[in-house]
């Protein structure tokens, strides 16, 4: 599952915010999915966890637990561990965190066509940001668009190219207001991506703009 060929990584800002626990759920999902594939970023993320550990250690002892707190905790422990949800092993396309949101593997994704062969599946997260899976047929392009906010796109299967670079499995493209791009899937294989946005996309041609209400992005 892990890949050593990843060229495009997450930023320190995102990894620190993930460690601090302040990202919208959709962005957490992106980070967790990338970390499953990328030990380079996992090590960076865990070093930001270590900063959190230091902050916790620095908490002064002025706050104390209530009387009987330890006994109450021991009673809680005696009731047994909460039932752990079964761990999905991860398939060749969907890493474990995504399987939890799809409710299965790549065959269980509930695709909806958004035209020109492109399909998407919106994943159930909180509404501060949107996470969706995108299916781009081999050789096809996603309409030219720019962004109001931040958009992260990570390749899960196949690869795509745009004005910036070539992106393969595990690579993350980070796009902001300044980037107008037309991602085009490699001809060799259909491309599946995880895309996360914290604001709606702006399409730059009339036709795709009409699609936007259906896209819900």
């Amino acid at each position: 599952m892990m890949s050593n060929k990843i060229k495009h990584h997450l930023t320190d800002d995102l990894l620190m915010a993930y460690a601090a626990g302040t990202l919208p759920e959709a962005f957490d999902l992106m980070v967790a999915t990338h970390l499953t594939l990328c030990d380079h970023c996992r090590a960076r993320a865990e070093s930001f966890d270590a900063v959190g550990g230091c902050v916790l250690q620095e908490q002064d002892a002025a706050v104390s637990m209530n009387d009987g707190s330890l006994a109450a905790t021991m009673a809680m422990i005696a009731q047994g561990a909460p039932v752990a949800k079964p761990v999905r092993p991860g398939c060749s396309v969907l890493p474990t965190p995504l399987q939890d949101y799809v409710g299965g593997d790549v065959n269980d994704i509930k695709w909806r066509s958004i035209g020109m062969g492109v399909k998407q599946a919106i994943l159930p997260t909180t509404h501060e940001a949107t996470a969706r899976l995108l299916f781009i047929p081999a050789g096809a392009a996603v309409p030219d668009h720019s962004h109001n906010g931040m958009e992260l796109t990570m390749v899960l299967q196949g690869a795509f190219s745009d004005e910036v670079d070539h992106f393969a499995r595990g690579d993350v493209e980070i796009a902001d207001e300044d980037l107008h791009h037309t991602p085009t899937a490699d001809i060799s294989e259909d491309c599946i991506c995880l895309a996360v946005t914290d604001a709606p996309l702006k399409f730059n041609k009339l036709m795709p703009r009409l699609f936007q209400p259906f896209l819900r992005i």
Partner: protein
Amino acid sequence: MVMFTESDTARLDEPVADGPVVRPLRVKRRIKGRPVNHANGSCETRTEWVGHVARIRDAQDQAAFAELFQHFAPRVKAFLIKSGSDAAMAEECAQEVMATLWHKAHLFDPTRATVATWVFTIARNKRIDVLRRQRRPEPEDLGWGPEAEPDQHDVMALQQETAQLRDALTALPEAQRELIEKAYFGDLSHREIASQTGLPLGTIKSRIRLALDRLRHAMN
């Protein structure tokens, strides 16, 4: 509590084993040496909390748990209050965090995190769950390989590097340190978090990366 750090203790014991040749140097160093542990008496450089978690994992040791509880539960509670929780909710959550520590003791990897770091991640996830009412996607767990016990040298090195990180954090200018703390209390959105923490994270990152490589190797 104990006033010596691990290295102080080792220095006191060593002359017996090593013979007199190096003794003068050691004496000199002891006189000049400044205490490694922090003013508030905590012992980050010691690895004793690691042993506590192992005793819970291996023997359901309630005495070890009580000591961990005494140290960490008030800190978790203080952390949650600073993160916007009221005292009653913070108390309840701190208890749940400590109960999680008990149940998940077998998952703790001391070559990748100190006990404090691990407790922080449990407390953070509890905050996301309870205060933000949000799911927390986590990366796929990396299970232990066939060799269950981690190398003590690796454990010690990670603990020491985390202690250095903590020293660096406390040595930061007040305003900068407060910004980092606010980020971890959830007071800054991801847009406001600046990546320039001013903290030396390179060493600890490399250490964790090595530990991940060993885990991958053991899994294959």
